[in-house]
């Protein structure tokens, strides 16, 4: 095959190119190839593209089953935001409130409100903190490259939940 081509190409090519009658060369036009930088693809962000294609938000929250992984993940964000809310209220309250905060706390102690209400309030303060604390450790572990298999993610998730609930209850009952 290769020999055939090698032998053939010299003679056949010459024949076809130079022969006036078959005359391939007469058909040839001079063509200049000019190198140009490729056109940059049209800029379109991830969101823009998906909106244009009519795609729903990913994950499609109304049809996507809740899983431990996603639920713990979003609650870390939620507890972080709750804690930030408490902190912001405290910081602003310190400036805005007419009396010092400890005055209000003394009033509260004197008011002798029901312990259920107090325990509930303490739990609302403590649980976001304990959850965010223990799950924060989990996040930091991941950032170091630890416990990243799905099995470990689930195992640490359950351990974290127990620790968070347990320590919140312990704090409330102090």
């Amino acid at each position, binding site marked *: 095959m290769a020999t055939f081509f090698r032998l053939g190409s010299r003679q056949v090519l010459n024949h076809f190119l130079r022969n006036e009658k078959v005359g391939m060369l007469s058909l040839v036009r001079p063509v200049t190839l000019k190198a140009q930088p490729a056109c940059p693809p049209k800029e379109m962000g991830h969101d823009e593209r998906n909106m244009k294609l009519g795609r729903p938000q990913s994950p499609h929250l109304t049809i996507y089953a809740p899983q431990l992984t996603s639920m713990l993940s979003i609650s870390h964000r939620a507890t972080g935001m709750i804690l930030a809310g408490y902190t912001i209220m405290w*910081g602003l309250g310190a400036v805005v409130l007419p009396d010092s*905060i400890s005055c209000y706390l003394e009033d*509260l102690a004197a008011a002798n409100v029901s312990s259920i209400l107090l325990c509930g309030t303490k739990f609302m303060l403590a649980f976001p903190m304990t959850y965010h604390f223990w799950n*924060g450790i989990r996040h930091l572990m991941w950032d170091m490259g630890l416990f990243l298999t799905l099995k470990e993610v689930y195992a640490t998730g359950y351990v974290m939940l127990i620790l968070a609930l347990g320590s919140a209850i312990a704090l409330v009952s102090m």
Partner: protein
Amino acid sequence: MALASILRNASRVQAGALPRFFFKPASVAVNRNFSSSLCPNYATFNKNSNLNLGLFVPHSKILIAPQARMMSGDHSRLWPIEKALSVSLLVLVPAAIASPHFILDNLLAVAAVAHFHWGLEAVVIDYARPIVVGNVLAKLALFLLYIISATTLGGLIYYNVNEDGIGQTIRQFWAIKGSGKEKTADSSGSEKK
């Protein structure tokens, strides 16, 4: 060609300069799929490096350097700081409550505000995207966050300086017992939290 070698070196320097605290950034930067649609230097880049003309190798090291990010700036240097800050909170929160102290209170105030500022910044960037809420609102949300964070930090330090301090106040609140239990609230010092 000159540009190509500069870029190649730049990416090497960048990779080498990745600050490693006690954290290894776990292969965040290296395996990025180069997205040409985000690259503003695309045209210049190709024109000047005649080596690569038309040959676009997605995983080449050279191509990582001119990557444009949606967020401003290079986050790889802030990242370990954020993580170190989280670790410091892990110590500061229990410490400031267990043994209230002026310095601990103020360290906690600074660390907590810095931490939640960056945290909420991530939240705002995730949800208040320009394509969803418009450019103005997206900018305004971030601007507002700066105001809120700064005011909160000021308020907390004011509180630590002029009033009881964070740790002591938490203890004072925790010492309040309700009407169900017949425990008096006078033993505020002996409570653990």
